[in-house]
């Protein structure tokens, strides 16, 4: 045992800063969650503020709109979650088949560029190109399709949200899959080829199984964000015409809580979202282990 410590202490020392940072910035602040159960007033402090139990949670769920915003959040978030998993994988697989390295690089760079544009900027651009006189509708007009009010019509608004989010992020999400793809042992492909497997069969039986662990990890982690439907995107794009289909928990909390300095309410909603997220992550972790025998972490 003594020997073990002498041998390994430098590694522990290397780990120490990360552990400390995590403790200070992730664990200690959790104590602040108690304000979710108080009517927190800054000058009274946590010690002096009045305890109100579950009042903020009750407010969230008894609000006339809460069903609507929770349903909206789930619909939008789940659609994004699925597409945000499928599209990058398909894209990565397609890109992986490209043999010209230069072309591959160029495409990869181009598709992940939108990731770096903020939604504030993109919001303004989308309003223009999706407008009834915008470029998209003019294109549709060529096929005789009536102009569609993408941002002002509830169902189209959801489609627009999901599509634009996928467009913005799929290139960036694909990076991790591309990395996984490049780690596959080429000998596997050679063996498959000798056995007479076609490109398609190679993909099904070599490529996909090899990156499946990564897919599961990414999928599981994104489940933790099931109640995040994309706050900054929606805040910049939504409008009264689509409240009924586009208002989500975060935009609701923003209007009620943050602009008015209601710390406790904001904290309560955050706690609620994290709890649901944690529950789903643990659940999917267990399921992956039981059913597919994967150790994710």
């Amino acid at each position, binding site marked *: 045992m003594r020997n073990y410590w002498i041998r390994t202490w430098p590694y522990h020392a290397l780990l120490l800063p990360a552990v400390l940072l995590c403790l200070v910035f992730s664990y200690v602040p959790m104590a602040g969650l108690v304000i979710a159960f108080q009517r927190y*007033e*800054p*000058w*009274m*402090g946590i010690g002096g503020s009045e305890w109100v139990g579950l009042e903020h949670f009750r407010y969230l769920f008894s*609000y*006339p*709109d809460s069903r609507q915003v929770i349903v909206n959040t789930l619909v939008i978030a789940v659609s994004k979650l699925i597409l945000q998993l499928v599209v990058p994988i398909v894209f990565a697989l397609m890109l992986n088949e490209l043999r010209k390295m230069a072309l591959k690089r160029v495409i990869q760079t181009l598709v992940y560029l939108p990731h770096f544009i903020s939604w504030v900027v993109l919001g*303004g651009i989308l*309003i223009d190109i999706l*407008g*009834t*006189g915008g470029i998209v509708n003019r294109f549709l007009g060529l096929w005789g399709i009536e102009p569609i*009010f993408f*941002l*002002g019509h509830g169902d189209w608004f959801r489609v627009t949200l999901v599509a634009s989010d996928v467009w913005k992020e799929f290139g960036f999400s694909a990076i991790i899959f591309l990395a996984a793809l490049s780690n596959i042992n080429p000998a596997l492909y050679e063996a498959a080829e000798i056995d007479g497997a076609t490109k398609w069969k190679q993909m099904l039986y070599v490529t996909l199984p090899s990156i499946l662990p990564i897919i599961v990890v990414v999928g599981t982690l994104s489940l933790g964000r099931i109640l995040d439907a994309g706050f900054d995107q929606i805040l910049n*794009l939504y*409008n*009264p*015409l689509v*409240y*009924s289909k586009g*208002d989500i928990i975060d935009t*609701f909390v923003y*209007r*009620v809580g943050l*602009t*008015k*300095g209601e710390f406790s309410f904001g904290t309560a909603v955050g706690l609620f979202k994290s709890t649901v997220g944690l529950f789903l992550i643990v659940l999917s972790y267990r399921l992956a282990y039981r059913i597919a025998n994967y150790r994710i972490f």
Partner: protein
Amino acid sequence: MMRRRRWTILPSAVLTGSLLLTACTNGGGDGDPEGADASAPAATNGETASQSPAANGEGKPKWDFKYDPPITITTAVVDENRPNAFKPGETLTNNSHSRWMEENLGIITKFDWIVGKFEDADTKIRLALSTNGKLPDTFTAQGDILKDLLKADRLLPLNDAIEKYAHPKLKEAIEKYSYTMPEATKDGKIYGIPRFGMGDEGTVMWIRKDWLEKLSLQPPTTIAELENVLKAFSERDPNGNDKDDEVGLAVPLKEGPWTWMGQTDAIAGAFSKQLLNTYDIKLFWNEDENGNLVYGAVHPDAKKYLETMTSWMAKGYMDKEAGIKDPSKASELAVSGMAGVMFGPYWMGSWPLGDTAKVDPNAQWQAYPLPAGPDGLKGKAQKPIYGSFSVFSKDFKNIEAWFAYYNKLLAKNLGPEDPYFDPRFEKGFHEGYDYVIKDGKVITGNYEAAGVPKEQWPLPDGASIDMRWMVYPLTGTGNPLLPYMNAEAIKKFTADPNAEATSPIEQSVKGLNAAQLAAASVAVSEQGLEIPNRYTGPLTDGMAKHGEFLQKLATESYLHIIYGEKPLSSFDEFVAQFYKNGGDVITKEVNEWYKANKK
């Protein structure tokens, strides 16, 4: 809500006029990043009485005072975006004005904090509250922060100080516009000096004059005539590109009928005295026939407004995408030559509408008086004449020094006849900073055009210095203004655009472009049509609890009706919903407040 309130800062910003505009376009010439000097507790407490201005000797004029030894006042500023604030080498903490103040007035300004955003300032104050930390001697507060400060009992009551030291004009304004005060009043004591705006942002009707002439139309004076103009604009191709791409009215409806630009209060005002806003539960509360307050957006008169807007939307006279656009976005339609009418404040003649000339060199926007309704009614909303308050820490010992300095700055706006007017500021604050002298003439901007040699320019690129940062840190980086104080100046320069400007207010009015000045003149002449919001109390408990839902409900219902997705008759359902979901509670609270505070 905070965001929007802060737009009330705009009038003063715009009135710093050419300053700000050149600042925006030229960009360069910024000062050094100053070391935030946070380590300055007020060192000279306690020895105040002997050195107050009043004790300076009876024979001295009111403007003449000096503290010896010098005193220190601490403050805090939001250093949001300030191109052209300082000469190279000068900083917020050390510049010619700060040195001048120390030498001549014996007042040293220290900064407890300098932050980049309004939100950060709020955080700093909340932090000081939660740790019971030190507050600056004077700083700016409003809304929830002000409410918190009052609850925590950390502010200095000002009744005596106002009585003893305040400029008579300020006292007069506080009395005359006493409805601004409840937010900063607790138990009968006043805790804040309102940062008045000039209330000059009332709506005017902007129309493309060149389009009117091209289609041989008369300027509309009624809603019916306006409708004809809108029809002609949207159908007769006024921009002459052979495409049916124009609409009549550019209007943002993302926040409902009322916002800071492009608002439709004048259309509502043509049909009823009931002004309406759906996006803020504190606006607009109007008196009904029985003298009770009623929320304008649920008053039956609102139907007339909705009927008009719905028919304009259906006929294509209005931007089809109004519902997803905020004011800046809506103005792009007008600027790009696709819309010929837009409502809004007088300053739109420069930004945004002035930019139309880039698309169409013949474009000419002109402000017209508001259109009258079928019964001859005209009306518009009174823009709030105050936003935030200057407040003072309970530990501040030199309140009279703050007032003495405030009075001096206010007097500079009022002109040389004022007893507090400091003759050292007659030409401006400091030569080579806010003005230069060329051939015996005072030049306050556009130095290159005025032929000032390059080495005399205040800033190397020829821009004007934005004096708010040097001169006004103690008054919240804003020139102390009083409501409507520029009305006379607007009249003067409308009569004679080349008249001599004798005060900063007159200079800023003179700095307006021709379209803005004409619009300001229209706005001033229609000031009598302005209808104030009758509820000026604090956010009630009911508002805090239900306000957000009602705001969403109202805005959503209005837009669904205007877009024809729901019939006009659904208005009654909306009203029932409104009262059922907390509107009744709020109405009751508001009326109780009104009975108690009505004069």
